[in-house]
């Protein structure tokens, strides 16, 4: 929250509206999981998750009328997260089809703890 001057206070109605939308999106996530969309399941679930996250960040965390600096801080955090996930997963994804030795692990002791 920037200054505590009056005009920055959101009406309670707005919070209730956002809350209602969030519940709707939750129901959407749960019901979307019932259908088998193949690889698209993940995309749908995470997309709804991102929308919910944005709603919480912008309205509940008042980033909507915070300084541009707060936007940068929040954005940087998620950008670095995508850096970590993106580069690591792309490295795993592009590995040539190799064969885990687990099913054929050359171990004399196949530990089964």
């Amino acid at each position, binding site marked *: *929250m*920037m*200054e*505590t001057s009056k005009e*920055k*206070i*959101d009406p*309670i109605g707005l*919070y*209730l509206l*956002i*809350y209602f939308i*969030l*519940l709707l999106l*939750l129901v959407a*996530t*749960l019901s*979307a*999981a019932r259908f*088998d*969309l193949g690889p698209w*399941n*993940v995309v749908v*679930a*995470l997309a*709804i*998750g991102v929308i*919910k*996250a944005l709603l*919480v*960040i912008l*309205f*509940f*965390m*008042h980033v909507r009328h*915070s*300084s541009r*600096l*707060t936007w940068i*801080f*929040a954005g*940087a*955090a*998620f950008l*670095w*997260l995508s850096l*970590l*996930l993106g580069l*690591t*997963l792309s490295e*795993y*994804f592009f590995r040539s089809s190799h064969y885990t030795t*687990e*099913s054929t692990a050359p171990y004399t002791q*196949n530990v*089964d*703890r």
Partner: protein
Amino acid sequence: MSDLVAEQFDDLAQQTEADTLGMWAFLATEVLFFGGMICGYCVYRLLYFTAWHRGSLVCDNFRWLGVGSGGWNTAVLLTSSLTVAIGVRAAQLGQNRTLSIMLSLTLILGIAFLAIKAAEYTHEYHEGVVPGYGVFHPDDEISADLRHDAAQMHMSEVVLRRQFQLFWVFYFFMTGVHALHMIVGIGLFTWLLIETRRGRFTPQKHAPVELMGLYWHFVDLVWIFLLPLLYLVR
């Protein structure tokens, strides 16, 4: 310098901005902290999707009134975010009564979340899927599913069991660290409630309420992503 503004700041506006920025920087570290776990989770989801799929089905089968516990937890946390947001608004307007009501509601919801989590953990303990020294013996119905998956994927059932155990390692570690953050949040909000009762917060000086609000919303945010990642792997 009135005690309102700490000595190293020039005025109240600078102090509030600094506090908010500090909190956001701290939340950035938390995003990366959970991010490390999510990165490990995603790599193993890419490598062992069958086990992840089976694990997610098992952890989603703890249901009440047809809705999985993950769903209930999210609803509880979203409601608590609402009460926190209204509480922060009340603090800004100086309505101490509404603030204390909202804070106590948030506390109740937080404890409800932990209660659901505890019920879920005991349920999973009885299903024998808690990983750790000698505690991992999924009961026969889950083992049968595992054998079926292993046969379908044409891999050794022993290996699939290990991957399945790995899912539960990530499940308990991610939800455990999240629950830890919830417990810290509840502790902070109890302190906030006591301070409100003492009437310490005025429209000028209510920074702790805002900061704790940001923290609570962040913990709710993490759960919003944990739900699809852990419970809805289809």
